[in-house]
């Protein structure tokens, strides 16, 4: 009797974990599809820009594609702006900005973080202490405010925003890398590698990086979304592209005055930013679940 109910419970648990697994996978799949769509769009737009081909329904800067401020329709999915530019085409054309800022800032933070964190852990002592206090201070700075000040000092532009964010984005990665590296350094095989005369940088590259990359990859995937949000904010404040070039954040702020007459205008680019970020969040969660199962 007891055994029977136990078995039943076990079976139920099995089915439950199976359902949970499917659910997890579903989330990760949705995330991967969203991220892939944005990445592909960004690549296609960047490539066709270089070749001078137009893939968007209308040119991003082309005016009078329809009556100004026309509502969403089949020919203008998100309507048109004050000078009759197609908002959908402009949103598509701005994809490379946000995607490239998100990925490149995280990539640089990732590499810098691994370098600083593992070197600090490796050297130890006063060097480690100083480097980590420095990291703590940078980490405690109000990121957005510092990014804004850097951005103003460098002047507006996508590349400058990228640089501004790169300067302040690495501390959490350095902390994460140092923590993970410290865990590994006390293990025997690192000691063995050292004794066998392996050079320090080689140990860092072959053993340390390999071991910490999984944990950091999860953080990085989730973090791309955060960078995109931050970049959208800087762009909203007018610190990124210059008119007439399109950018999501900038579009929301320039359409802000139409919330009564044409509310779809500010909502469409905002919605696109949110969708992009959701994609990276779901994908990051999926990667973590997959790593945890392993």
């Amino acid at each position, binding site marked *: 009797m007891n055994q029977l109910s136990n078995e039943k419970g076990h079976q139920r648990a099995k089915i*439950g974990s199976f*359902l*949970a697994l499917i*659910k997890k996978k579903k989330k990760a799949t949705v995330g991967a599809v969203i991220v892939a769509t944005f990445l592909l769009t960004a690549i296609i737009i960047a490539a066709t820009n270089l070749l001078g081909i137009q893939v968007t329904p209308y040119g991003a800067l082309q005016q009078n594609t329809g009556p100004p401020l026309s509502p969403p329709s089949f020919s203008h999915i998100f309507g048109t702006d004050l000078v009759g530019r197609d908002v959908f085409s402009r949103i598509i054309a701005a994809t490379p900005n946000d995607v490239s800022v998100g990925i490149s800032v995280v990539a640089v933070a990732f590499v810098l973080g691994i370098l600083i964190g593992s070197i600090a852990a490796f050297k130890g002592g006063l060097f480690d202490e100083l480097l980590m*206090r420095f990291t*703590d*201070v*940078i980490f*405690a*700075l*109000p*990121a*957005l*405010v*510092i990014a*804004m*000040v*850097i951005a*103003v*000092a460098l002047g507006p532009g996508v590349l400058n925003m990228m640089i501004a964010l790169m300067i302040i984005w690495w501390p959490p990665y350095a902390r994460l890398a140092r923590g993970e590296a410290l865990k590994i350094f006390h293990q025997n095989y690192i000691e063995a590698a050292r004794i066998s005369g392996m050079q320090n940088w080689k140990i860092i590259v072959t053993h340390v990086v390999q071991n910490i990359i999984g944990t950091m990859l999860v953080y990085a995937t989730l973090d791309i*979304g955060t960078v995109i*949000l931050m970049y*959208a*904010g800087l762009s*909203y*404040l*007018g610190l990124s592209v210059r008119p007439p070039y399109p950018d999501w*954040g900038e579009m*929301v*702020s320039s359409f*802000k005055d139409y*919330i*009564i007459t044409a*509310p779809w205008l*500010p*909502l469409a680019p*905002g*919605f696109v*930013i*949110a*969708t992009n*970020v*959701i994609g990276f*969040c*779901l994908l990051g969660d999926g990667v973590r679940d997959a790593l945890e199962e392993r």
Partner: protein
Amino acid sequence: MKMVSFVLRRLCFSVAVLFSVVTITFILSHHLGGNIVAAWLGKTASLHPELATLYAVKYHLNDPIWVQFYYYIVGLLQGDFGYSPSRGFLPVLTVIGETLPFTLQIVLIGFIISMGLGVFLGMISARYRNTPIDGGIQAFYLAGYSSPPFFMALILLIVFANIFKLLPSGGAFDPNLAMPTPIIGIPLLDSLIEGNWAFFISALEHVLLPAAALALVTFGVVTRLLRSSLLEVMRANYIRTARAKGLDEDIVFYKHALRNALIPIVSLSSIILTWLITSTIFVENVFAYPGIGQYLVTALFDQDYPGILATAIVFATVIVLGNLVVDLLYAVVDPQIRLG
């Protein structure tokens, strides 16, 4: 004794952070080079040439940058933040005194809503884990924290101010009403203490939408952490003991598990606070709310460097103080914490 050294160490660190903020923003804002007076004064430089000389003397602009920095720090310690070109050359301290209270009140209300909503939904999500309720809550917070603050603010503005016309669409209070006399420094609380109900209700109406926008983009982190923290605590041995004693599941969950699961939330609250404070820059912009975020944005565009420096310092101070309080609170709440 240990507590005292812990507090001292945290204080030193806070001072170091603040000093770095001042140094970094000072260097960056002087990075432009060229005619710094023109940059500081903006359009007014050509209209009032005498102001330019006044500025050059006041800020020691003809000296090297470290001398300027020395005088700036000395000025700061004496409470002199300079004058703000973007606000008609009012003393920066006066402008901050006018704007900061409004920002503090949306941050305060936003923080309360964010934590309340986050904890409530996290609790429900863990209690009904792997049910449609849990799924719905997860989708809700994912949408929340994936939205840029200005987008969330716009949605609330369109829905509650334009479509349903429930709440005002901008400003901080009805301009026909007089401000209450400052007691704590936060108008909303001052009017409450004074018993000035008309102002209190007007200020509250204007606070709700910006605060809700702040809360909706931040509560998700709380919900997510509380959910996983609760699920972990529910596996602990003392919970099994409580269940084995025959206690009601609700009592086990809300009384035994929740209390411990809330501990990590305390340390998370400093991140929430930082996030709220930086998000106000956008939210205030959407709601034309006369807070310090708006001041920072106008200062940025008018190249009002005394204003930029001062607002950066104020933002950093609020964040650092918030973190300090949370750290100390954490040490009090969690007896297991090492004060090292």
